[in-house]
Structure formats: structure tokens, C-alpha cells
């Protein structure tokens, strides 16, 4: 901000603006925030932690909500629009709420050859939703996926990105019933919980040591550049 501040009216206190302003902070729980800071410390540049942080926030909320986006932006030194713009590129990051269980049915080539489209059709009809939809009880979101790299167990299905093996229409209905009953909770964590195993300890090779090595590399790089310059003349 430059220039003179506008004159403040001396009158009665200004009413709070009707528009909700989002202040960074306070949305992520202290524990998640602590994990976020540990992740950021692993990378030479904070922005690299953006996707891991989005996964963390999804683990907390089940989706990437606006308050989380504001807080992540603050943590990695970007604007919320930059975080949202990046997140929207990636299929696994949900900027709209999703069900407790995201069920992904692959219909790519190997699965197509083994009945994936019929399975997806059955899944939609049996859940009463279209692809991309969420059941009214908020339990299940149905997604059509591209190849999930489990093509020998086709048609391939993942629930919250855990492989549950090839499914038939019948086994699919049992799977859904089990999910609703909480019978698969050990194997398939609720919400977007991606990584249950955390890194033990932070960066194990000290920043100073990495920095020293990197400085040596930068020096070598400068030397190369100087040589190239000489070569040009």
C-alpha cells in the first residue's frame, strides 16, 4: 500500500463487512499443521509441499475446502488462487465435497476388455447416482477412473485409493454394503486419508550440509557458465 491512508470517519464504529473475509490460519488442527510444517521442511522450496499438503488437508476434512486452501497458500507462500488453480489440475484433489468413500472404477483398456463398462453401469444404477455423483447419505462418491495400474485384477476398483481387487456386479454390491456398515475400515480409511505412515524425523541430512554441497555445485555451475561464455567469443 502506498500513499495517504483514507481519512477515518470519527463517527460510530463501522459495522463488520457483510462479505466474509477469510483469514489464514485456524482451520487445520494443530496436529495437521505440525505435520504440514514438517513436510515443508523436507523440500528446498516450500511450494514443493503443495500436493502433500493438499492430501493432508483432505485427510482432515475429506475434501479440499476453501479455508484449507487459504491456509495452505499461506504456508507455502502462494495466493489461494494459485493453490486452487494447481489443485484443480489433479484428479485426486477435490475442491467440492465428496462422500466418505470415493469409489473409483477403471474403464481403461485392460478393464474395458473385462467388463468394466458393465460394472460401472451397474454401480451407478445400484447406488442411484451418476458418475461423479454422491449418494444422498454422503457415504459414496462414484468415479470413473483411468488406468489405476492394477490391470491384472480387472475390472479394477479402488476405494479411497486402496485396491479392493476385481469386482463383479454382485461383489460390488457386497463391497458397498460392507463400506456402509464400516466393515472395511481397517483396510480402507475413511475420507481422503492417503498416507497413514508418516516420515519419522524430518530432513535427516542437515540443511547446512545439503547447502554446502549445493554451494559447491553452484560454484561448479558458474564455472561452466563462464567457460561457455568464453567459448562463445
Amino acid at each position, binding site marked *: 500500500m502506498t500513499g495517504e491512508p483514507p481519512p477515518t470517519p470519527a463517527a460510530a464504529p463501522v459495522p463488520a463487512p457483510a462479505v466474509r473475509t477469510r483469514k489464514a490460519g485456524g482451520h487445520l488442527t494443530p496436529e495437521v499443521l505440525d505435520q504440514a510444517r514438517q513436510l515443508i521442511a523436507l523440500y528446498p522450496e516450500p511450494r514443493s509441499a503443495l500436493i502433500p499438503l493438499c492430501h493432508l488437508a483432505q485427510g482432515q476434512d475429506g475434501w479440499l475446502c476453501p479455508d484449507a486452501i487459504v491456509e495452505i497458500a499461506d504456508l507455502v507462500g502462494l495466493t489461494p488462487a494459485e493453490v486452487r488453480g494447481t489443485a484443480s489440475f489433479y484428479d485426486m484433489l477435490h475442491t467440492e465435497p465428496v462422500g466418505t468413500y470415493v469409489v473409483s472404477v477403471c474403464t481403461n483398456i485392460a478393464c474395458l476388455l473385462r467388463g468394466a463398462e458393465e460394472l460401472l453401469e451397474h454401480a451407478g444404477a445400484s447406488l442411484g447416482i451418476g458418475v461423479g455423483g454422491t449418494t444422498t447419505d454422503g457415504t459414496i462418491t462414484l468415479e470413473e477412473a483411468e488406468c489405476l495400474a492394477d490391470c491384472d485384477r480387472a475390472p479394477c476398483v479402488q476405494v479411497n485409493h486402496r485396491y479392493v481387487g476385481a469386482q463383479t456386479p454382485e461383489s460390488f454390491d457386497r463391497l458397498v454394503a460392507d463400506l456402509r456398515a464400516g466393515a472395511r475400515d481397517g483396510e480402507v480409511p475413511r475420507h481422503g486419508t492417503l498416507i*497413514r505412515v508418516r516420515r519419522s524425523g524430518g530432513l535427516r541430512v542437515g540443511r547446512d550440509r545439503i547447502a554446502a554441497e549445493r554451494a559447491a555445485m553452484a560454484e561448479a555451475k558458474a564455472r561452466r557458465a563462464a567457460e561457455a561464455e568464453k567459448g562463445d567469443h
Partner: protein
Amino acid sequence: MAITEAPKIVTARMGHPDSHTLERYLATGGYEGLRKALTMTPEAVAAEVDAASLLGRGGAGFPAGRKWSMLRKNPVSYLVVNGDESEPATFKDHLLVERDPHQLIEGVLIAAYALQVSQAFIYLRGEFALGLERVQAALNDAYDHGAVGEDIFGSGFSIDLVVHPGAGAYICGEETALIESLEGKRGFPRIKPPFFPAAIGLYGEPTVVNNVETMSNLPWIMLHGGAAFAALGEGKSTGTRLFALAGHVRHPGVFEIEMVKTTFADLIFAPVLGGGIPGDRQLKAFIPGGVSAPWFGPEQVDLPLGQDEVAGAGSMLGSGSVVVMDEDTCAVRAAWRITRFFARESCGQCTPCREGSGWLERIMARIESGHGREEDLDLLLDACDNIAPGLTWPPQQTTICVLGPSIPSSIGSAIKMFRDEFLVHIKEGGCPFG
């Protein structure tokens, strides 16, 4: 041709249910390759890999040793391991990260030592939830074991390794897109030149990118020597390789096979491998190296599983995945689904790829649903020609990355091999296969 008794180089431990644990790894020779490497000079380690003539397993098949030696003249800042594995029908890295994460980590450490980098990243596609857990758990154990971190195994060499999750985007497997993604950005490929990772990679620094399977071969190569690896296979294609077999076969799965010595026919039909086509139906066609590769028909089934051999026949071994289609498969539908994949996954930076994939997908969908016109075949080929001029193999590139020029592979193959089927769809207004 035959199935040889070659040693299992990367799948030796897979028979053990606890193959992912440090205990099992150490009990089966784990981290011995790294220990040996640390007693050698980095140059000698790199020379051993060069002697193995290990071809990169990510798709392009560039020799790893040569990639490194080009870089050794300049100091490398980062090593990045590509575990994005999203090429449809490719699922070999899935096996390696879930079932033998220590082997991958040891390979990365050997490469890091040879390249003298102090920080490395393993980028795994986000859909590998279990794989991410397994590799992270293995890494935690490897730190405690003294294999990673400061002064590893008392050698004076220090290296930090970070496991990084992706979030669902095929294009992030392309090495420069992977680097962008690792920098916290959208996975937009960078234009080469100048953005060859070796010159301007992660954070603008020289970077080596190698595939998970490439790395997983290194512990064995260190222990047994590059010459022992090079003695397997034939010609340029040395060692063994993982082949992911899917589609219409009795036993789909990942098989480790000696390069060149075995044929596609062995892979698909041998009882100990694919086991043949269910219902004893005939082979219609197969895709030899991921959906970016042109298709082969029954005439090519006796080709050996070797890089040059497949390239010579007009396709590629690519990512090591083989999709089998039986006689009841609708070629139009198969090609349409592959095209739809590319249309969805195009990052949108280049017009031929973004617009072309969408157009092709719509025309293919129209034909497939019985609403095509006879001119559509020429229209398809014309649109393909706009993406990859001349429709040559390997394709001409008009775009930033090779995703675009890969789009015509399946459509071109399907039209060339099964033109009649397209015509039946068009003339009879529907699919002859129901």
C-alpha cells in the same frame, strides 16, 4: 524361442509374504549392493552400470549408464525417481513399490552415490496409497538402519531421500511434467530444448530422472557386476525385464523375463506365463508396449521381446505392458477408449494435442455408436496427420511432449488392421460385436 532359466533380478523376493520388510530384505542380501558400491569410487559404480547397458524401463529405453555419464561431466543436483506409472495397462512398478520397497530404495541410493547427489526424491502416483505407505515405512527403517541419511554405513557419503505423492494426472509421468509437479505446480511438460532435465531440471538445476524399475535393477548389478547383467538378453536389450500382461489371457500378471530370448507368443500362451486366451478364442491383436504403441496382429506374435526387434517391426516395447485382444473384441471400441484417455489426459498446452484428441474422440465415439459416415475414416487419418505429420513411426513431433504424437497410434492401427470393422459400424449403424 523359449522361456529361459535366467535369474530373477528384481522379483527374487516376491515369493515371501513379508518381502516388503527390512528383516526379509536383510535376510536375502539386502543393502549388500550398496555396501559394495560405497567401497568403490562413484566413477567405478557408474562404469558398472554402463557395462550392464541397462536400458531405462520408463518407456523411452535410453541406457541409464549413458544418461549418467553425460551428466557426470557436470555436477548433478538432484535425482528424481519416476513412479508415476499411469500408462494404461502398465502395472509393473506397482508390484515393485508395494512388494520390494527396500530394493527400490537401495537402487536409488546406489544411483545417488554414483551421481554424487545429496538429495533425491521418489515420486509415486497418488493412487498408490499402499505403495506410498510401504515405501515410506521402508525408508523410515532404512534411516534407522544407517543406509540413508548422514554418513551412510560410515562411508562419509550423505544423502536425504523424500517420498513424494502425486495426485492423479497421467501427464506427470513425462519427466519434465513430473519435475513441474514436484515443484508444486500443474503438470505441464516443459519444452526441450532448453529444458532437458539434465541441463535445467528440478529448481532449474541439473537433474537425473529414472524409472522405478530401472533403479530396482541396480542392487543386483552392483552385487553381480555389469557384465553378468549384460550376459543376459541379446544385443542392445540386456538383462531381464518386467512385462505386465493384461486383457484376454488366462493368467494376467507381471512376469520377469529374459530380454529377446522369449517371444510375445511365449508370453501370451506359455502355461507358466499368460496361459493362452480364455475359451480358446483366437488372438485378434495385441498392444506391445502401452497404449502409446501401435498394435500388432497374430503375424507378429513370434517377435522376440527386445527393444530393437519391436522397434524394427514398427512399434515399441515402451513401458513393458502387453494387452491381448481376442477375436470377439471390437477394435473400434478399443481404439475409441484409448483415444478418450488421451483426450482426457492431454494437458492442453499444445493445440494439435488438445484439439486433435477431442476431435478424434468425438469422431470415434460417433462411429462406435453407429452414427459414423464413410468420410470419417479419412477425416480421422487427416486429424491424426495434423498431430503427427506423415503418420510415421516413430512419429514426428509437433508438440511440447510426445503424448500428442502418441494419440494416432491406436486409431491408425485399428484402421489399418480392421478397416472392415469400421465400415460395418458405419454402414450397419452399429457394432457387429454387440
